[in-house]
């Protein structure tokens, strides 16, 4: 810090570090913090107590604070903020930080630390938080001097939201928050060099447009980058798809950027993607990746991925381009700018005749890989896909703005397949890290951000137990969250893999000794409901949606249901398993694939 910067501060107000911290948060537009107190952050909690501009949501576990902040961030486009104490507070937050890192969610996590003089002495509740979180964050800081506090916190927000967003941790020793600190004004950012200069490369855009105009079988493959880029990017994608008539597929993280009921939308691609999306990815002659990263859940066998296509990859993070699949054209930059440049370049060019391609897609579509048969006799067992479809249809009837979070596993894939989204930022799921226990705290974060919206956690009984303590948070803040549990008494995805790859030896995947979810709800001051047969399903969903408080709905579904289509690990997109009757070896299920996750 230069002398000029120091003088620019208003140190004469004699604020302590905790007060300076809150002032900076306020200036950064922070309205809500998700956190849990403890010894090292007492000064910050004291400062919170004395102000009323920033609201604090008390969670029941630090991991949940991070997931709630993630959902808050993803559903609003703002930076989510977390406050945890030193030692176990910080280590409990690590899973959430990695989750945010993998899914590019902007977060600032403020962690307490023992006083600077005690660092390194194995003090009570001391952990090397910056060391532990170095690979778990986009960047992290340890504040050692009071004079740098304000600037570091401002910079943390800038790092979190700039470029490819991600989590940033600021470690705050107690002497820094207790002692006086200057409220320095924002200095000329030392991060200017990080900001992306100018728009996408004109030559790359020209090459892409050229390929678009001559392609016979083009495909847009869109990802979470479109969501991160803001609603404007989703709007531009829709316009570009209209103008060109190209089909669109999306990753799990990108759902909602393009309306899923739209005929131009082929559904999600990848391991549990639609037949038409995967076959189109395999068969296209032009693949335009927009804000997606060729994750292994998307590509399947990499050397057989989209083998005959000219590939364009647009991403804000240059390290993602040519990481897994080598491409022909690389476009670095914000996908919004890329879409804008493509739209402008396309101009009034009429949409090319792609009828042969669309006919081919229609024949793949007719396979109906997501299809299932629900016996509608009232006493019939509920199939989980049917439960999700009815939930979607009945939620849609309410006309309410709806946010859906999920846990991780089969129910997550069924939600992605059968729940439809027509707006971005409504779909909250743990994609990259695959964190069981994400959905319930995520629903908390979304409901806090959107108090009047309908917020549903589509859950599995095993995942939701991983953060079930958040029912306490839901009760405390009277959050009318709906927890819709597809209860099949199994860690369903584990069971499915054991069936397909390990000779149906269901090792440790049965959910023994489950709680009575109705009573559990009641114990946490929520309403419990249960549907055991298909005849009860609609009524339970309707009552759940109509209830103005939190609901836990225990939906007892078929235990042995598998999630299809499925591209087994190590197989190619044209080797999908479509259902239980198919020969698994013909579908590329190999010993080699068994070693992959």
């Amino acid at each position, binding site marked *: 810090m230069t002398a000029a910067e120091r003088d620019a501060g208003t140190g004469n107000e004699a604020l302590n570090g905790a007060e300076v911290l809150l002032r900076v948060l306020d200036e950064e537009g922070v309205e809500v913090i998700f956190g849990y107190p403890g010894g090292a952050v007492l000064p910050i909690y004291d400062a919170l107590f004395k102000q009323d501009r920033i609201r604090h949501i008390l969670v029941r576990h630090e991991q949940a604070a991070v997931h709630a902040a993630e959902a808050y961030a993803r559903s609003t486009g703002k930076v989510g903020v977390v406050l945890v104490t030193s030692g176990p507070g910080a280590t409990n937050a690590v899973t959430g930080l990695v989750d945010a890192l993998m899914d590019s969610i902007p977060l600032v996590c403020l962690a307490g630390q023992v006083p600077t003089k005690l660092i390194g002495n194995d003090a009570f509740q001391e952990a090397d938080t910056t060391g532990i979180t*170095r690979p778990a964050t986009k960047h992290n800081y340890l504040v050692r001097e009071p004079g740098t506090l304000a600037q570091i916190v401002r910079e943390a927000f800038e790092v979190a939201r700039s470029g490819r967003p991600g989590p940033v941790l600021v470690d705050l020793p107690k002497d820094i928050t207790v002692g006086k600190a200057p409220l320095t004004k924002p200095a000329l950012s030392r991060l*200017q*060099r990080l900001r992306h200069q100018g728009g996408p490369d004109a030559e790359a855009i020209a090459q892409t447009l050229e390929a678009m105009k001559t392609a016979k079988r083009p495909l847009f493959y869109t990802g979470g980058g479109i969501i991160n880029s803001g609603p404007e990017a989703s709007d531009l994608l829709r316009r570009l798809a209209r103008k060109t008539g190209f089909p669109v597929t999306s990753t799990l993280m990108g759902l909602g950027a393009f309306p899923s009921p739209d005929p131009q939308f082929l559904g999600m691609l990848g391991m549990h993607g639609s037949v038409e999306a995967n076959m189109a990815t395999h068969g296209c002659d032009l693949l335009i990746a927009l804000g997606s990263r060729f994750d292994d859940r998307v590509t399947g066998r990499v050397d057989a991925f989209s083998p005959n296509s000219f590939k364009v990859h647009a991403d804000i993070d240059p390290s993602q381009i040519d990481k897994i699949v080598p491409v022909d054209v690389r476009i670095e930059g914000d996908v919004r700018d890329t879409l804008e440049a493509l739209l402008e370049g396309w101009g009034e060019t009429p949409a090319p005749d792609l009828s042969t391609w669309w006919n081919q897609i229609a024949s793949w579509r007719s396979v109906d890989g997501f299809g299932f048969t629900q016996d509608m006799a009232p006493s019939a067992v509920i199939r989980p896909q049917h439960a999700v479809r009815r939930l979607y249809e009945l939620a849609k009837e309410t006309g309410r703005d709806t946010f859906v979070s999920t846990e991780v596993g089969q129910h997550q894939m069924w939600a992605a397949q059968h729940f439809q989204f027509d707006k971005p930022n409504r779909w909250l799921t743990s994609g990259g890290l695959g964190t069981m226990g994400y959905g319930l705290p995520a629903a908390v974060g979304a409901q806090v951000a959107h108090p009047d919206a309908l917020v549903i956690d589509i859950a599995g009984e095993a995942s939701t137990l991983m953060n079930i303590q958040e029912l306490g948070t839901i009760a405390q803040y009277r959050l009318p969250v709906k927890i819709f549990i597809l209860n099949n008494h199994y860690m369903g995805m584990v069971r499915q893999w054991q069936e397909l790859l390990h000779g149906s030896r269901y090792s440790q995947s049965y959910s023994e000794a489950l709680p009575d979810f109705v009573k559990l709800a009641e114990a946490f001051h929520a309403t419990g409901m249960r549907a055991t047969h298909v005849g009860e399903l609609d009524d339970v969903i309707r009552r759940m949606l109509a209830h103005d408080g939190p609901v836990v709905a225990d939906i007892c579904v078929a235990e042995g249901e598998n999630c299809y289509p499925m591209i087994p690990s190590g197989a190619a997109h044209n080797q999908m398993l479509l259902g239980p009757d198919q020969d698994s070896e013909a579908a590329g299920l190999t010993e080699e694939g068994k070693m992959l996750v």
Partner: protein
Amino acid sequence: MTETIQNSVISVLIEDESGALARVVGLFSGRGYNIESLTVALVDAEQKLSRITVLTSGTPMVIQQIKAQLKRLIPVHDVCDLTEEGPYVGRELALVKVVSSGERRTEALRIADSFRARPVDTTATSFVFELTGSPEKIDAFIELMRSLGLAEVSRTGIAAIGRGPSVFHLNKEPV
């Protein structure tokens, strides 16, 4: 698909702040990249910039990834692949202790002289030789000392810089 493994010398200009080196080393170990050698020292006290020279190896796609991943680190100002960008000078310093007497001692001194290795510590029964040069030259010297009483080796790893007037980092903009 067989891909050739290549060696690369990569220079990194990084802000001299706490944990900066750990970020670089952690990136290599976390992503399974190879470090053959690594040197680091402050090179610009005014701007607090350190220069790291990493000798690494991998397929061309992996080398590209290493550079792209290094550039993502917030304190990293610039990354330069000296192997790719043209001719460079790479030098390493070694301190080599040789304990021997008689014929072997004389022979060690003679060979050291031909390598321009200087004795920087001498006792009746030992030498410590200081030697700079390419890693290959140092390897060759150590190999020759093996039968002449080689006792201990300390090497710095390679420090490298591009040849000619072009400069890796001009650093004109405010940081």
